């Protein structure tokens, strides 16, 4: 089975400034990965390389069987759905529905199929009520959801996101979490840059930590989140539930709300 994403020995520098050094990892279908690291560690650069916007100086990146150095971003859009930071600013169509349809149309999906995909994406993100509104009549958080709907409508094999929950309230975060789960269950691989470790704990299972352009750690997310000393060394802060799990020595040291609640219930009733 071809991996959803294969990054091998990638180096990249902006002018003289090194941004990525010898980064390599593989993602398989359905995997949900958090890309962590302090600001300036190279996360956004890696995202631009994976979407084909920049070619690696050394090494290679394969999305499915496409080499990003050969296929441009337009062609890669058939495999990779992406949502960059400030995605709320990228909408340009007259209605939300039209904007969500832009991606599938651009990659050549026939109109009937496009319409169906757009409906599904809008429903998943709770946007069906505002589908015919002008995007800029909506507040920024809803525009962000519309941008995500656009990425989902591509039905990509790989979904790459940069801070998908920034600026969203509890309800919107839940919608995003559910949409991402749905996507992963349908076989897509997820790669999300995020500072929101609480959200990561709920939605993602593997952690890749970048430090000064290098891949410093590749481990199960739960294990990383419960190792406070190590996290702080990377300039990260453990989320409250992970700290709770450790402090109360819950069996299995879970990090997800449901399991922490279950563990806590047992511990505190006893």
């Amino acid at each position, binding site marked *: 089975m071809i991996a959803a994403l294969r990054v091998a020995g990638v180096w990249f520098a902006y002018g003289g400034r090194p941004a990525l050094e010898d980064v390599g990892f593989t993602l398989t279908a359905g995997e949900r990965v958090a890309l962590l690291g302090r600001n300036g560690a190279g996360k956004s650069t890696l995202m631009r390389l994976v979407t084909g916007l920049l070619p690696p100086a050394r090494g290679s990146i394969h999305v499915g069987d496409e080499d990003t150095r050969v296929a*441009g*971003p*337009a062609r890669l*859009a*058939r495999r990779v759905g*992406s949502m960059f930071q*400030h995605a709320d600013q*990228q909408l340009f169509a007259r209605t939300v529905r039209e904007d969500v349809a832009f991606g599938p149309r651009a*990659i050549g999906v026939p109109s009937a199929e496009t319409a169906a995909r757009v409906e599904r994406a809008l429903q998943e993100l709770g946007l069906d009520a505002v589908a015919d509104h002008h995007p*800029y009549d909506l507040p920024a958080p809803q525009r962000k959801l519309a941008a995500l709907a656009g990425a989902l409508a591509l039905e990509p094999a790989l979904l790459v996101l940069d801070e998908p929950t920034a600026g969203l309230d509890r309800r919107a975060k839940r919608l995003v979490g559910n949409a991402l789960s749905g996507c992963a269950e349908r076989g897509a691989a997820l790669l999300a840059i995020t500072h929101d470790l609480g959200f990561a704990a709920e939605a993602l299972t593997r952690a890749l930590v970048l430090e000064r352009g290098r891949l410093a750690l590749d481990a199960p997310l739960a294990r990383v989140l419960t190792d406070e000393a190590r996290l702080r060394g990377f300039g990260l802060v453990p989320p409250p539930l992970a700290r709770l799990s450790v402090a109360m020595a819950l069996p299995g040291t879970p990090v997800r709300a449901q399991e922490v609640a279950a563990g806590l219930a047992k511990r505190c009733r006893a």
Partner: protein
Amino acid sequence: MRRLHPFTLLAVAAALPAAAWIAPPRTGGMATVAAALVLIVLLDGRQVFTVARAAAFTAAPLWLFLFVLHGTTGLVETGLRLTTVVASSFWLVAVLPPPRLVEAMIARGWPVSAAFLFSATLSAVPALRVRAGHLVDAQRARGLRTRGGPLIRLRALRALAVPLVLSALHEVDERTLALETRGLGPGIKRTPLAPPPDSAMQRAVRWGILVACVAALAWRIA
């Protein structure tokens, strides 16, 4: 050149286009374009090429436009004048950082809102350029084709121009709030932090330029 008072630089940049219009058409136009090019060449090494190229890329479509509108009648005359405007504007932006201009305006007692308007317009450009870059990335990653025939490029333009303008407008709104809350507003006289040095000679030169332009205009009209 940078050490000159901002108003002097402003006067020179304004005098060239004025001269281009006042002086006899072809020779005057050629002289002022030449003068503008000399100014550009006098810039810091790295900037010369970027400014010259930017000015050329902006002026070229204008010539094309004129040709389409008027054919060859008056093409050279008007073209040279417009080129002077373009070249001297680009030179001004390169040689005068907006903060310096604003400090000069404020030190002279110009109303703060006028100074801010000037500065905000000029300093919005780098921010917009960065934003445009991010926008291009996001749209390309969605499948937008930016290379190809004119129709493709036109579609691409819409996907880039609309969000850029809308978000720029929104940003102006937010910016206004942020600056208002930091005290920028009518009524209080702002303390100049580092007023640019001026000299009697520069003042004389500025007045001289103004008088020369007015005299030339009067002579042309008469």
